[in-house]
């Protein structure tokens, strides 16, 4: 089976497992990826939502705060941001939207700066603001709107009505759609706070993508196919790499591979 086919199977399986609530299976685990517990069929808690709950308005519950972080770190020390590439259902959605011909390339300088937004989102919207003011990311999360609000509204159209939080969230959701249509993996690259949480683990993860730089002929085919816009030939355990393996398949010299350990 081709690598991308294996990845698709993994993403679909992950989406299925994330929705075991369909069979009334509700657990107390946290998803290791971005998925909302407000989804009618969710089976676990959103890691960012749980973190926000844990520090809401100064009421700190350290075990609850650490729980999603440890869930993610356990997996991320193994595969780094491979979670984004192989498991995240929102990654699967962006895989679909990237097929639209409107995808735009961003200037490298701007690209570098935009990537920092996700770290700001993590610190400011998921940790600092919920601690001092109350929910912030949860209130505007486009993923929550996509997998929570919309399905709940459709399934229970005769019961649920929009509340004052609805329209600001709808606005952000529309911007999210525009972003992922215009920029390949735009959400993962620039805005996903969970991606920011996982990114440092790429530096130490057991499995990573390795390039034999000495044998590289700099044909740049890997750069062209990389959905995260990474300069693959010059990367050294890039914090942006989602281990999708598209560069591995594209490399004519076969010098890019998954490595365990070193």
């Amino acid at each position: 089976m081709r690598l991308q086919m294996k990845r698709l199977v993994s993403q679909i399986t992950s989406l299925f497992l994330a929705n075991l609530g369909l069979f009334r299976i509700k657990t107390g685990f946290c998803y290791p990826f971005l998925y909302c517990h407000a989804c009618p069929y969710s089976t676990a808690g959103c890691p960012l939502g749980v973190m926000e709950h844990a520090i809401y308005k100064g009421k700190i519950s350290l075990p609850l705060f650490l729980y999603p972080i440890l869930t993610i770190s356990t997996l991320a020390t193994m595969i780094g941001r491979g979670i984004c590439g192989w498991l995240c259902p929102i990654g699967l959605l962006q895989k679909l939207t990237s097929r639209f011909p409107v995808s735009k390339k961003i200037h490298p300088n701007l690209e570098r700066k935009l990537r920092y937004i996700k770290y700001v989102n993590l610190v400011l919207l998921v940790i600092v603001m919920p601690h001092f003011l109350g929910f912030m990311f949860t209130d505007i999360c486009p993923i929550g709107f996509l997998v929570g609000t919309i399905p709940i509204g459709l399934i229970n159209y005769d019961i649920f009505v929009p509340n004052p939080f609805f329209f600001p969230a709808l606005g952000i959701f529309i911007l999210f759609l525009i972003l992922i249509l215009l920029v390949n993996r735009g959400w993962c690259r620039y805005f996903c706070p969970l991606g920011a949480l996982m990114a440092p683990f790429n530096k130490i993860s057991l499995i990573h993508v390795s390039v034999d730089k000495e044998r590289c002929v700099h044909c740049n085919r890997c750069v062209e196919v990389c959905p995260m816009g990474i300069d693959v030939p010059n990367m050294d355990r890039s914090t942006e790499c989602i281990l999708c393996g598209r560069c591995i398949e594209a490399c004519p010299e076969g010098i890019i591979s998954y490595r365990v350990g070193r």
Partner: protein
Amino acid sequence: MSRGDNKLQGGKMRKEISIASMVISLILLSSILLCTDVYLKVRDRTVSVLCLSCIKMEPRSIVEFRFQTINREGIDHLILENLSRGPVFLHFRTDACPACDEMDPIVGDIFDVEDMDKPFLSKVKRFDDVDVKLIHINLDHVDSNFMKIYRSFDVSEKGVVPMYVIVTIGRDGEEIKPCFATLYGYLGKSNPKEAKKVLIDVIKTAVNLYKMNESGYIT
């Protein structure tokens, strides 16, 4: 030592670091799961009780008095005991819920309660010569019995907060029985102030029903 050797040694160290980090994370995660109640908290609160501001929607608030609870097991004896003295107003919330934070002062204002921060409180206020009892319940801090009460009144069956239940007595055919109406969030209004008017109207309706049927009610 050559450059290649350095690279090899750095690589080995990285592998050791990643294995060590993985083991430490796994041990800490297992400890948290085994020694604390985080699993239950996430399952029974975060996943099962949804904050209305999180889903950006709320169940349509229809003032409809029902005689049958959702689980059909009847109204809990705690509520029935209080019902013998007047209607009971139940107010459910959770810790992390912006809509609850906004509606708490409104409920407090109606019942003249200054500090709504307590996880559980009750207060009686007289409306039109009838005592109405407020029972304010923060589901994150009370025992599972209150969760059962909450579920039995949640007519949307979605597990959402804030939720308000007014329990009174009404005529079901020939019989006078306890009945209740369940409302949610901002009660279909755009802000808490407008929602206050709806809450007061519902309480008044419940009081009227109570006065009309009080004489025929056998506790």
